[in-house]
């Protein structure tokens, strides 16, 4: 059997060789190509070649050699409008020396004139004597001083809230407070005129941001309704999505007041928490200077969180948040600017405490401030080419051009000429500064006029008439 099989195989082999000799050339070529192709199929890889073309070390070195980064910073031209700062010699008080010229100060947010107050200074001096300057540590690590606790206590009492927390930098206050509560996936409804600190806080929170038109409650309600429909589609997600409205009491960028009573209605209707930034309205609005809640006679507990800096009315440094302990206490472990930054120098806290004392002892001061605001607000009306923006009781108002002169750059230049005209004649003003590329909704260029209680009626009138004169000479 085995031999027979062997015989058979041998015969097949012979036959094959015979067939090979007899086959036509084209057939052999075809077969050969087919065989080669099969070999190629077997040995070729299944993926596309170019995807795996690893760079050789030499190519890598070449790529590294080739790469040219942009310069760290682009060059800044010598006459960049923001490069050459006004230099103030001496303290920026009511009388101020700007670039060597003595002026009446209409530029610093020293609303209550406490910057130059002797009582405040001596409180700070006493603190300096006892504590030195720096705190050399964050609040957690021996950076909590008795003055900090006292200031927090005093602020909470002044605002009539359960608790207050202080930060060592005004800007960092709201910018740290927002991300302490609002996280990724949460929704924040924010006024498009909101100041830069709020914008940065929102960016840090990585929440879902919904901008509504400035002070437009119908637009806000439209967004809230939209969200409500969205929530009905996905109730499980809605149950864990926190939502907040972030507004300012008086808007830094426009001098407008926010319609708080309407906001409170919306808050309860749509179950949204309200965060209120009061840097401009704290120590200004209300009978006792408690801000916009007092101005409207609103229960302060209806606002979930109020933040303000101590750098305007209180003429110190830093900021604070106040509200119910349930909310505020959370920042003591979650407010980044609170936990990870050195605490406020005690002498600045002492100055703020003394400033609060003065506010409590002289409630008339707020009435005086409002009267002065109204006076200059009225006097500035009807200047041809300039429009007054802001409430009549706002201590910081904006003068904008009625019509643009072509480009933002041109407008800025014209406003600068008006400012220079006034500074040269003894009234210190500034243009409101913004980072044009960074702002979400860039405000129109403006001159900011700041009213303080130290300005006399004559000075207010002089400033108004000087601005009028300047506008006439520059714009016509």
């Amino acid at each position, binding site marked *: 059997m085995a031999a027979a099989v062997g015989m058979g195989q041998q015969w097949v082999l012979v036959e094959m060789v015979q067939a090979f000799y007899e086959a036509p050339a084209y057939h052999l070529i075809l077969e050969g190509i087919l065989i080669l192709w099969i070999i190629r199929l077997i040995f070729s890889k299944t993926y596309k070649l170019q995807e795996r073309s690893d760079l050789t070390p030499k190519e890598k070195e070449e790529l590294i050699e080739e790469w040219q*980064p942009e310069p760290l910073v682009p060059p*800044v031209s010598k006459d960049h409008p923001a490069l050459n700062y006004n230099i103030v010699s001496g303290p920026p008080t009511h009388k101020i020396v700007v670039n060597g010229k003595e002026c009446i100060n209409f530029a610093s947010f020293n609303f209550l004139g406490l910057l130059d107050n002797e009582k405040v200074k001596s409180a700070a001096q006493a603190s300096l004597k006892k504590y030195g300057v*720096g705190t050399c540590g964050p*609040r957690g690590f021996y950076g909590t001083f008795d003055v900090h606790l006292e200031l927090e206590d005093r602020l909470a009492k002044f605002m009539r809230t359960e608790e207050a927390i202080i930060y060592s930098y005004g800007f960092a206050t709201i910018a740290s407070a927002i991300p302490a509560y609002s996280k990724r996936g949460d929704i924040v409804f924010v006024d498009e005129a909101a100041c*830069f600190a709020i914008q940065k806080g929102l960016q840090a929170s990585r929440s879902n941001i919904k901008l509504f038109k400035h002070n437009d409650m119908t637009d806000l309600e439209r967004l809230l309704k939209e969200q409500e429909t969205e929530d009905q589609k996905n109730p499980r997600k809605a149950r864990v999505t926190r939502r907040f409205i972030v507004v300012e009491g008086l808007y830094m960028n426009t001098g407008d007041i926010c319609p708080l009573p309407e906001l409170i209605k919306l808050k309860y209707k749509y179950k949204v928490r309200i965060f209120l930034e009061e840097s401009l309205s704290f120590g200004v609005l209300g009978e006792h200077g408690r801000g916009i809640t007092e101005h409207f006679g609103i229960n302060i507990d209806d606002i979930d969180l109020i933040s303000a800096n101590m750098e305007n009315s209180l003429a110190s440094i830093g900021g604070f948040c106040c509200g119910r302990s*349930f909310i505020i206490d959370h920042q003591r*472990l979650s407010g980044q*600017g609170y936990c990870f930054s*050195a605490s406020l120098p005690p002498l600045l806290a002492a100055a703020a405490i003394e400033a609060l004392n003065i506010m409590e002892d002289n409630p008339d001061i707020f009435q005086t401030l409002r009267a002065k605001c109204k006076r200059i607000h009225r006097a500035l009306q009807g200047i041809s080419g300039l429009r007054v923006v802001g409430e009549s009781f706002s201590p910081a108002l904006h003068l904008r051009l009625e019509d643009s002169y072509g480009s933002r750059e041109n407008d800025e230049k014209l406003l600068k000429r008006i400012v220079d005209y006034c500074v040269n004649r003894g009234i210190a003003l500034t243009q409101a500064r913004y980072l044009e590329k960074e702002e979400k909704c860039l405000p129109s260029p403006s001159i900011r006029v700041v009213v303080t209680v130290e300005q006399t009626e004559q000075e207010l009138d002089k400033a108004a008439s000087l601005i009028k004169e300047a506008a006439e000479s520059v714009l016509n």
Partner: protein
Amino acid sequence: MANPSAVCNGHLHHHHHQKQNNVLKSGVCKKNGITKGVKKNGVTNGTLYKKTFIEHFEQAPMYVAVLTFVGFGVGTIFGYLRDFMRAWGLEKRNVAQEREQQKDFVPLYQDFENFYTRNLYMRIRDNWNRPICSVPGPQFDLMERVTDDYNWTFRFTGRTIKNVINMGSYNYLGFAETDPNALKTVTKELQRYGTGICSTRQEMGTLDKHVELENLVAKFLGVEDAMVFGMGFATNSMNIPALVGKGCLILSDELNHTSLVLGARLSGATIRIFKHNNMQSLEKLLRDAIIYGQPRSRRAWRKIIILVEGIYSMEGSIVQLPEIVSLKKKYKAYLYLDEAHSIGAVGATGRGVVEYFGMNPDDVDVLMGTFTKSFGAAGGYIAGKKGLVDFLRTHSHSAVYATSMCPPVAEQIIRAMKCLMGLDGTTQGLQRVRQLGKNTRYFRRRLHEMGFIIYGNDDSPVVPLLLYMPGKIGAFARRMLEKNIGVVVVGFPATPITESRARFCVSAAHTREMLDTVLNALDELGDFLQLKYSRYSKSSHPELYEENRFEFED
């Protein structure tokens, strides 16, 4: 963690780099190494380091890690038990509650979010936020407080605990002081300027005092120009976004401070993290970034910036600056160096890590630092080339939107800096720097000898002492306070979960007696709490502790 860097030094050690680092004196052959668990693994490096660079990260024995996890486990089980009891009304709920009117709002906090705070942190909360009522000098007075409800609330007794030795404040050079003579100019400027500014730098808040300070800072650091800001934290978080943006890459050390992390996030740039002080990890990221470009779009990166700190405040390690500089030069990246803890604290004349390594300030593109620590003031600076500072003057978020620095605080910095520079006509500043160096090495050496595991560089005044177990955090800090010593203890989440630690900040103002008191207390407590985990007795590296070897030649 840091072991491979020794290998990396070897890698960098070829001709190309030697040329680039010609600013460094060559021929001084010293060891560079990092020990972690291994006694010595120094690699000889011919040019990068002028003197010995030794950092310790000794690993604890295995049983310590196991017991640490057991400790957390027990704490967690009891936490669940107590949460259960609170839910059923068996235990009083001390935590503040949501307002009645807002109970139907979406909860502000998820219940599990605060589990750790409520059940573990609360047990030892008395060791943080201890209020003080004096200058944070070498000794301070604490307000005594007690709790009636297991740390949920504190009550002040009205008594003060006097003369507690301060091992917690960042008062490296002892400029947190109340000597009226030292504070004479500060008092004068406070009287003249008051406390407020009420405006931003770009509007009406640039005072002559700021100009004076900025010129002095630039001179002190040996750079073209500098700009100062009112808050150290914000110096990082409000300036990094001005420097980088979309299409840029940030390479950030994994242990960078929150302010750097926040600044990086706010910039919108892509962030990649390299292992702590690990040059191999950094180089790999740099190479990959340049070779492969941006993910998805495949465009080349616009620029690459490396973010590092001088001294890391939780590890006590010093950045390996010479290697980083040679890497950044090789790969054309930029370097942002945060000297918050190192400025004033290291370097022969207190100029920070740049001086410590004998390098040129021009090697670092962005020099950042704070005035909170060594200068006993507040605020921060950014210094470098004039072009950089001019750009920041026009584009820094802080310059446009934040109130500028308070003038008496600026004066405190000026007087401390003048003292350091010898401009006050004395050598007091230099003496402080030297005293700090001596105190640091003495304190670290003694702790080593006692057998504690301490982290970081021998020259770093930040001295972390490893406690590991969560139960020991509270016990350690309380017992130290009983002995009139104020210490800082840190646990998760500020450190890895197994590496709870105490942190000492040595100051030039500490006397030898104070340090000895602390060391004796530690010796005793170390035995009592069994904290002496180190397996290497002092004899294994005696050569490191010859005091005179570390004296600077200047």
